[in-house]
């Protein structure tokens, strides 16, 4: 088994087993979306118009929720030492860990978002578009979050600080994600251009964030 594949398999196993926390994000997502109609009232037109924004905010918070343990769990039990002195560059370690984290906790959220959108009285086309924008945008959220997770790796209760550090950086992703998603349900912008910008944000984050997170891990960890 190659080192990268071994790391991916190990991350996936840890996430799926008891205490791994892969399902925390999905459950939190479900809770937020399910509570919204009770708070906003039974106005179906209003719910359908707010639907994309609600799904995106829920996805953003759910993604951040699971990320604070991304490196901290390895830091606490000492296996980060293994990763640092292993045969993979730390940048690749970050990328593989993020890929595994995205597959285990963000991908279920993307797949289930049309189902949850039904609770918000959304039509089929907006549902499909929201799922597409989430698939294109959540990699950027995971990668940007990884930088915050790396910076707060040695702090107890670092999750709050991480959210404060990371949330401003995720605002562009949120803006273009919601803009693209609400295009079908009467938004002001067309679908294509915000969706392409969203893809560009994700690609830039995938390319740049591993270097930032690896540099942070080298600096902060002592």
């Amino acid at each position, binding site marked *: *088994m*190659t*080192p990268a*594949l*071994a*790391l991916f*398999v*190990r991350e996936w*196993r*840890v996430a799926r*087993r*008891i*205490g*791994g926390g892969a399902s925390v994000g999905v459950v939190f997502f479900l809770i937020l979306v399910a509570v919204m109609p009770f708070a906003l009232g039974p106005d179906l037109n209003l719910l359908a118009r707010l639907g994309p924004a609600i799904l995106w905010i829920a996805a953003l918070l759910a993604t951040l929720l699971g990320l604070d343990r991304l490196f901290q769990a390895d830091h*606490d*039990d*000492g*296996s980060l*030492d*293994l*990763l*640092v*002195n*292993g*045969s*993979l560059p730390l940048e690749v370690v970050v990328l593989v860990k993020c890929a595994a984290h995205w597959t285990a906790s963000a991908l279920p959220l993307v797949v289930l978002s049309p189902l949850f959108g039904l609770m918000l009285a959304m039509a089929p086309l907006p549902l499909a578009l929201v799922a597409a924008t989430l698939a294109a945008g959540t990699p950027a959220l995971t990668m940007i979050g990884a930088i915050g997770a790396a910076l707060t790796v040695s702090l107890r209760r670092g999750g709050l600080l991480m959210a404060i550090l990371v949330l401003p950086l995720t605002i562009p992703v949120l803006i273009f994600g919601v803009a693209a998603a609400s295009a079908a349900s009467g938004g002001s912008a067309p679908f294509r251009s915000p969706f392409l910008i969203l893809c560009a944000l994700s690609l830039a984050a995938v390319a740049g964030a591993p270097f930032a997170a690896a540099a942070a891990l080298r600096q902060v*960890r*002592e």
Partner: protein
Amino acid sequence: MRLRAWDLTIERGGRRVIGGLSFEAPAGLGLIVTGPNGAGKTSLLRALAGFLPIEAGGFALDGGDSERTVGEQAHYLGHADGVKAALTAGENLAFAAAMLGGDSSRSAQLAALAGLGLSHVIDFPARLLSAGQRRRVALARLLVAQRPLWLLDEPTTALDAAAQGALAAIMRAHLEDGGILIAAAHAPLGLADAQELRLGAAREAAA
């Protein structure tokens, strides 16, 4: 092959833990780092593994692979032993072997665990193992991947007498193969001709 360190100075949190330390660890002879609590044993081992920055001086692995850092040619085993509680002993070893450039086959895992008298727990989740058993799973990592330099921080913690004997046998085999061993310890490790590096002696004399 030997590990050479010169004028090594390490600071942690603004406090000088180790100042101007020079030593040599030749292949085949173990080097036991001793000293009172807080003398800098763990800091020294973590600096050699590349986890802590050094203020001055340096260290090098003569005869090692010049393409890789000293840390990438070393096994480091510290107080946090790097065993994932959610994975089985075998999965932990398979991952360590793949990551550290070793043999990740099941037979290699069984052989490594057998060397520490633990082959019956290969499919047990690590969270169900006792502290000593977890420690032995971590030590089995030394056997599934071949690395010339071993940096062990109090390796006998939580081990019973039989396991300490097995560990001594593993360390002797590593030294006979021409490996380098640097271990921090309070108790003797069962290595007859090991050299001793005592830290903190100068500070005691000054106090």
